[in-house]
């Protein structure tokens, strides 16, 4: 057994924890708060609450309200420009993964200059080191999906080149992450379901990846078990606080898994589909391909799937885990995806597959048994023709 652990994020978890932002020591005096353009953070009153709490704590706020789902490099650069112009000294991601990752990437570029893609890998990134650090980052998470609350990654998309990849640096660990389940009651059913599936796969892929350790496995199995216990209830009744809390915790554990292990080819495929079709939510992409992916994994690592089946309270057999996925997709509605709506084209399966290697080979590299291109194409093809 060997592993590295480094998660220097302070996690404030629990109902009502948001209010502590008014009293705890904050890492700066002027915040750039990143929210989506949809306006939900304003409508729900969360943005005003945060600004008010900061004010109470003698911190000024500037709002960047143009974050897109699957946030883009252009969006990040717009946030950077605003942040520099206003002289902010820390960033805040208020919302889901898109806002968090925008806040993270923005914090890097403000400190280091240049373009966000200078610090990315993929095909066209320059993979420059984040040598000057980053502005401190605060995360206020209003969904349970990304794990970005406690990991060193920011996923950004470059639209021109169809690249959706991670900016990966210890510098983007949030200084403080607030997980207040009260902020999640209004997340709609379908988003709750898709995000819950994302949590599940951060943990399940972390469990089967080639860099898993007993340490990451501990978080992974607990997270998987929490998803099995709480996701359906959270989808059925968004005000079920026990279910929301359970999913919040599952998500934090999944983020710990991401920080100590890794994701696999399933995420590579998921990123590829969303990169080619940016309107396809990440959780939906995973939901589309998960059954075929895990059927493929079951051929090589049935024991691991059997252990995950046991963690969700089923017989310890690989096929039971596949059954669990199918049941979960059905009962949460995450399986009801109209591929036409997103423009997905089954005849492009090979193109999608190729993109997954070209852009996110690093994820494919985490498979215990590397997935060949023809198998990858077949998984995508089977997933899209149903």
């Amino acid at each position, binding site marked *: 057994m060997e592993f590295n652990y480094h998660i220097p994020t302070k996690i404030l978890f629990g109902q009502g924890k948001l209010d502590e932002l008014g009293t705890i020591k904050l890492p700066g005096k002027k915040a750039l708060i990143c929210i989506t353009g949809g306006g939900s953070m304003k409508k729900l009153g969360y943005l005003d609450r945060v600004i008010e709490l900061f004010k109470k704590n003698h911190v000024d706020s500037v709002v960047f309200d143009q974050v897109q789902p699957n946030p883009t490099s252009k969006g990040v650069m717009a946030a950077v420009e605003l942040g520099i112009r206003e002289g902010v000294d820390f960033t805040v991601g208020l919302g889901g993964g898109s806002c968090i990752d925008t806040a993270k990437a923005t914090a890097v570029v403000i400190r280091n200059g240049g373009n966000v893609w200078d610090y990315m890998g993929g095909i066209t990134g320059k993979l420059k080191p984040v040598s000057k650090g980053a502005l401190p980052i605060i995360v206020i998470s209003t969904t349970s999906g990304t794990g970005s609350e406690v990991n060193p990654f920011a996923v950004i998309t470059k639209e021109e080149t169809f690249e959706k990849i991670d900016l990966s640096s210890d510098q983007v660990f949030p200084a403080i992450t607030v997980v207040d389940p009260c902020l999640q009651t209004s997340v709609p059913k379908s988003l709750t379901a898709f995000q819950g599936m994302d949590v599940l796969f951060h943990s399940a892929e972390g469990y089967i990846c080639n860099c898993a350790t007993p*340490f990451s496995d501990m*978080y992974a199995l607990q997270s998987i078990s929490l998803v099995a216990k709480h996701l359906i209830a959270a989808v059925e009744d968004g005000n079920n606080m026990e279910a929301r809390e359970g999913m919040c915790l599952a998500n934090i554990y999944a983020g710990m898994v991401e920080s100590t292990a890794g994701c696999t080819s399933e995420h590579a495929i998921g990123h590829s589909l969303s990169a080619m079709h940016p309107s396809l939510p990440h959780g939906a992409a995973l939901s589309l391909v998960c059954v075929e992916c895990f059927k493929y994994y079951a051929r090589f690592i049935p024991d691991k799937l059997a252990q995950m089946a046991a963690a969700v309270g089923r017989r310890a057999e690989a096929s039971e885990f596949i059954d669990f996925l199918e049941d979960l997709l059905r009962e949460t509605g995450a399986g009801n995806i109209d591929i036409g709506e997103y423009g997905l084209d089954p005849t492009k399966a090979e193109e999608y597959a190729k993109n997954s290697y070209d852009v996110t080979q690093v994820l494919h590299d985490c498979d215990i048994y590397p997935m060949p291109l023809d198998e990858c194409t077949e998984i995508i093809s089977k997933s899209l023709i149903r």
Partner: protein
Amino acid sequence: MFSFESYIPTRVVFGPGKLNELTNIKLPGKKALICITEDQLMRKLGILDRVTALLDKIDIEYFIFDRVTPNPTRKGVMEASVEAKDKGCDFFIGLGGGSSIDTAKAAAIMMKNPGDLWEYASAGTGGGKAVEGAFPVVTITTTAGTGTECDPWCVITNERTNEKLDFGTEAVFPKVSIIDPELMLTLPRTLTLYQGFDALFHAIECYIANCAVELTNLYCLEAVSIVSKWLPVVAKDGGNLEARIQMSYAANVLCGFAQSLSATTSPHIIGQCMSGLYPNLAHGASLIVLAEEYYKKVVGFLPGMFDTLGKAMDESSKQDGTGKCFLDALIGLLNETEMRHLPMSGFGIPKGDIPEIARISKGIGFGFDRYELSIDDIIKILQKSYC
């Protein structure tokens, strides 16, 4: 409904052979004071030479402070901080077990806070002053017991008052902790067992403490399960690397994490009080001598929790709603490792001192217990334990 705060910023580098990683890690300074124990064990085992050779390679200057005592003292801490100031050191390396690491941590506090260490102790005769920062600390662990590698605590004894107290502040989380179980292969059997039980009791106490949270329960149950399985193995064969890895993982990482977010309870207070009064009594031994009678007394207060602990210790045990399976598993482990009936008298504790031990312990306070124990209860536990 539950809530918690979690903050464990230490960079943990865990695994056999990982000491060599020292040259690949960004260290938090250029000039280190390396704290080791006065028995010179680190020199004899050649570990100090390995560490200094690695530091030479990456041009880190170092000085050695080799006057750390077991149950490290306030005096030792103050001397180490004076030494570090004299030599212009900008970080500390705690090399060894809990004594060396805790000396490094406490001395690091004294680099940024004026006066005497005891002015910053928050219990007993301590001055209760707030700690404002500390110098960075790197730990290189050679034992599997304390968990201090991954937590914000250091335990120091005041040699003037015989108080053994915890100092805690986020600033003394080690910046880097290298945990290399290969360095533990030569630990003597008795020390291995003392430390293994220390880890077990850290996990149990952090689980039953009133400040336990979801996250710590995960760490604690995993640690309890690993120690129960592997301590008997390492007791029989200290050279078994897999057993050393597992024990180190449980004690150094899982228990350190648990202690960072939860807390130990009254057995640790009583044990530390005894070790403060009778320095021959090793920390682990102080917990072992009272464990059986202590848990017989309290298991009925939290039967459900002890049932869960019993299951973690022994998967095949029966949970009957009384917590008895935990007592069975604990006594079984004590028997199997030949640690049952460890005599308090053998450590120079006179039976007549028991009321005084109980009084001092209770005076420090059992703020993390979920149940009330009176001075009289403690006296009875210790009297029944005495042999």
